[in-house]
């Protein structure tokens, strides 16, 4: 149950994609997501799938890791498809009892499936190939302009990276706490909802206590090393664009222009 959390999961290996600057990957993911919403015909999606497949191939991350992210959205996917399938007005193709499937509904559901799965897979390529630290560094750099209007960009980025860093730790701790309470006869598998909610108290209290303790310790450790926010702080590994990053930007923009152009051609329009 707890092992299924894949948020911010990083897959350790070496590849061109892993070595890319985090900003390129952030920007690229953003462009890719935008492109998905601009297509008007199947060719655009075909291009997007081919492009994503190539990136995954280059990233050396096993395909099964990519698909794992999909598991979490199966429920959302199913609901969207159901609603689109039965609620869209149009020419009726099949009708079962009072439920009618229309051609427009079918089309919409297929588009939804494509969009959502490409969306999730596309963003998991980014999280799987970028360490959380790099990711927040990239965000911090990209949002640098906001500093001028007094947005605490560094602090936000620091909070994000700490939060990401603590997800696996807290997940592990939850597991241990649950075991310790189960050893005292706590029942987390009761069929009654009220009982199940009540059973969470013995888990949540120690978890919160330990989260606060950890936060305290971390704050102390940071202060002991004279951390005082982003002002005048330099990086040990500053993000510097290399040649490959510019090439990647080029490829991304090329993909974006071509796919949007092809995707909006008026052939086999939706």
């Amino acid at each position: 149950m707890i092992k299924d959390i894949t948020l911010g999961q990083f897959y350790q290996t070496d590849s061109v994609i892993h070595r890319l600057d985090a900003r390129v990957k952030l920007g690229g993911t953003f462009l890719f997501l935008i492109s998905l919403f601009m297509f008007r015909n199947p060719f655009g999606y075909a291009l997007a799938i081919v492009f994503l497949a190539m990136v995954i191939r280059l990233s050396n991350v096993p395909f099964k890791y990519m698909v794992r992210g999909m598991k979490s959205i199966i429920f959302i996917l199913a609901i969207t498809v159901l609603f689109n399938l039965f609620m869209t007005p149009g020419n009726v193709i099949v009708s079962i009892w009072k439920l009618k499937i229309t051609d427009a509904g079918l089309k919409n559901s297929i588009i939804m499936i494509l969009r959502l799965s490409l969306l999730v897979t596309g963003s998991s390529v980014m999280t799987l190939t970028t360490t959380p630290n790099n990711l927040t560094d990239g965000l911090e750099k990209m949002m640098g302009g906001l500093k001028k209007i007094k947005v605490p960009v560094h602090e936000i980025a620091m909070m994000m990276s700490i939060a990401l860093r603590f997800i696996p730790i807290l997940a592990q701790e939850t597991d241990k706490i649950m075991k310790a309470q189960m050893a005292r006869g706590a029942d987390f598998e009761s069929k009654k909802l009220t009982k199940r909610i009540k059973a969470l108290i013995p888990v949540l209290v120690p978890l919160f206590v330990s989260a606060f303790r950890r936060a305290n310790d971390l704050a102390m450790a940071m202060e002991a090393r004279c951390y005082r926010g982003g002002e005048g702080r330099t990086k040990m590994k500053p993000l510097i664009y290399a040649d490959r990053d510019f090439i990647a930007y080029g490829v991304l923009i090329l993909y974006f222009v071509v796919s949007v152009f092809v995707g909006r051609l008026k052939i086999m329009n939706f």
Partner: protein
Amino acid sequence: MSIVIEHLNYEYSDSNPAGRKALDDICLEIEEGCFMGIIGHTGSGKSTLVQHLNGLLKKTSGKILVDGEDIDGDDCDRKALRSRVGLVFQYPEHQLFEVDVFSDVCFGPKNMGMTKKDAELKSYAALKLCGVEDDLFYRSPLELSGGQKRRVAMAGVLAMNPKYLILDEPTAGLDPGGRKEILNLISRLKKENNMTIILVSHSMEDVAEYADRIVVMNKGKIVFNDIPTNVFARYKELENMGLKAPEVSYIMHELKEAGFNVDDSITTVDQAVLNIYQRICR
């Protein structure tokens, strides 16, 4: 009556791509009334093993019998099993959650379905047994010191009246005084309450002094299963596994090599003092 483990295997589920075996063909019998020490380096599988004994982890294959009953059988009552095989985890912070010490200890017996009165009586007895003073009963568990927390956590498990008591690293993070107190408490539980104790530890000193049988684990396998003197006599092999014999046994070995007529199979400080006094000083 005893706990019998036959050909137990446990593998991490698919989240670990290597599919590493955490437990590899474990066969072990824990007799009633014994004090067994399980030692091993970090990651040797000792904690994984004991979490099978009360059904917290699901074995991959093999068989575990507690008092002759298969714990993975369909008719096995999980709650009853967990009260029979009590498991105290390393960090008391992971289980203390109630507003005060006393109600926290009541959590276990109440889960076992005892009436409020019975649960409170059991909890009181358990707290007394663990040497928790009355004036701590209505304090928040968070205010206690490390050693006190550990006693309360132990009382929380003892209140369920276990027949077998498993302790996972009960002395980790305690100062020498606190360690001694906890270990004395454990050995008193064995002697006076006739409990079967399984002590998981990586501290040789702890285990050598109290256990009457030692199981050494390495990489998911049982390497030795013998009485302490026999196990520590093979200290060279232990070192290869990242373990050590108790400090005192090194001294005895060196004394012997230096030509003194001492008994080098001694593993506890008290025995060593006596032995050195008898053989050398006289």
